[in-house]
């Protein structure tokens, strides 16, 4: 069964360091997303990506965040200078067709900022 894969599963970093979270979406999917979930809180939308550009982003997705699809398979989320409040589980998701079906989520990358 096709799945979304994410690496690393857990990353611990020092405040101010750059972090890159990687995702491999389902191969024939066209729409890609990053969500985050701070411990004990709800899943929050960060950004959506289609046709090699950002479609929409939330207020959370400030200048410290960036996404790219460098090689046609990986979809990455970069946090330039991590803050304590960036500690969360980050989920990548992909969608095959707009307005149909559900988002498929990866297992998540847990980021801990010390």
């Amino acid at each position, binding site marked *: 069964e096709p799945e979304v894969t994410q690496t690393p599963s857990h990353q611990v970093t020092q405040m101010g360091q750059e972090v890159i979270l990687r995702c491999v979406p389902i191969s024939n999917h066209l729409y890609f*997303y990053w969500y985050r979930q701070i411990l004990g809180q709800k899943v929050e939308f960060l950004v*959506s990506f289609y046709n090699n550009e950002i479609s929409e982003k939330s207020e959370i997705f400030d200048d410290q965040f960036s996404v790219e699809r460098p090689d046609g398979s990986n979809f990455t989320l970069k946090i330039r200078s991590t803050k304590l409040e960036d500690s969360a589980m980050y989920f990548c998701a992909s969608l095959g067709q707009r*307005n149909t079906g559900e988002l498929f989520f990866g297992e998540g990358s847990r980021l801990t900022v010390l």
Partner: protein
Amino acid sequence: EDKVVQSPLSLVVHEGDTVTLNCSYEVTNFRSLLWYKQEKKAPTFLFMLTSSGIEKKSGRLSSILDKKELSSILNITATQTGDSAIYLCAVRHSGGGADGLTFGKGTHLIIQP
């Protein structure tokens, strides 16, 4: 502000009981409502609802959407300990991020043996 509200936030029942989880929404240009089950990490898809009044069923789980009341319920009959999870309601709407989703806080369901 677009929002999705789930109730109750937590629920503890005994195995064999039937539970009903609620989700209400206030969004711009509603498109669909989805239910997910989150056990340890990634949310896994349960149902997608777009039409009012049509029940979707999968085994002991069923769900229905009421567009007039802007709400949905998720029913689980004959609950088992494996049903213990956080159940997430999410709404796809315009402004939800190019077909992304706005999530509720979830209902934490605990099934006691």
